[in-house]
């Protein structure tokens, strides 16, 4: 009984320690949560613009992951530390291009169909 209490106390103190000193895994968890919020937004929302914003959220979660691993590699010295940052620059470039094209499509769609709800856009369905 006492032993169990001490084990439990030890587990709580290590948890507290990891809260006080967040490491790589905390960053990975935060980025996974952001990614999952983005996926949920893409799957459940009806508004095309909000779906685009959720995609931005997903890309941003990937960026956070890249940067966290970049810092980890910098600290351990095992591998190329700056490759993650370079990848993040390219992801931001692709996200900007995707947003420009996607919003152009939204404008063209709204001009022709007067709607941006994804379940009303069924031109290519049969």
């Amino acid at each position, binding site marked *: 009984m006492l032993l169990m209490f001490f084990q439990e106390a030890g587990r709580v103190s290590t948890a507290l320690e990891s809260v006080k000193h*967040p490491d790589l895994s905390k960053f990975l968890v935060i980025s996974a949560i952001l990614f999952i919020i983005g996926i*949920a937004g893409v799957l459940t929302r009806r508004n095309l613009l909000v779906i685009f914003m959720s995609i931005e*959220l997903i890309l*941003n979660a990937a960026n956070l992951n890249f940067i966290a691993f970049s810092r980890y590699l910098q600290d351990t010295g095992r591998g190329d530390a700056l*490759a993650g940052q370079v990848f993040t620059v390219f992801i931001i470039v692709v996200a900007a291009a995707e947003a420009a094209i996607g919003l152009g499509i939204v404008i063209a769609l709204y001009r022709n169909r007067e709607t*941006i709800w994804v*379940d009303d856009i069924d031109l290519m369905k049969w």
Partner: protein
Amino acid sequence: MILSGWESVFFWVFSIAAILAGLLTVMARNAVHSALFLISSLVSVAALFVLLGAEFIAGVQILVYVGGVMVLFLFVIMLVNVGAEEEGRAPIFNRPAQVSVSLVFVALLAGVLVMYAIPKGYGALKERDKISAQQVSSARESQQRSLPPGATGVSRVTKETERVGNKLYTFASLPFEIASVLLLVAIIGSVMLARTLKQEIASDDVDPEVLKPASMSTATESKEAVG
């Protein structure tokens, strides 16, 4: 990488802010609110980038995402205003059955990632690298001390941006060129998509033979509208 002291406080503040703002982005009824919450989420993630020592990426994130992409989003939201969703006449989420199935999928993904994949993978990584907090912080301290001090003497001037730029033009020079072509294609594509038929007819860079059927159809349309 192990944060400590005020760094960990800021880590928790900004990560919780990013997650809350992300949730509100997905759940807000008004698309403008959604965009503003996404901006605050992006700024919080930029703060996490600063904590991770990637100041250049944080600056690019704020300049490109918040200053460029989100302003574009706000413009488009205001061009295509959808009243029904905002006023509560239409549901913001899709049909209940599909929504519940996708939420089950997402919960499964979240559970496996957060409970199993990340702890196991990180445990194996720690086992492989065997770094201690003291080692990392002392290495970082000595690295900091080697940097020149800033003008106020309080902080140090990092060479991070210079190193990222070097890397971008040596290791990643071919992808850099490809990215420039991608941006050019995106500019031309979005201009073409946003142009109306009337604007295309008005500009004289299109073959008149190609435009003949199109202009005739618009003429009949306008006649119908008049009649």
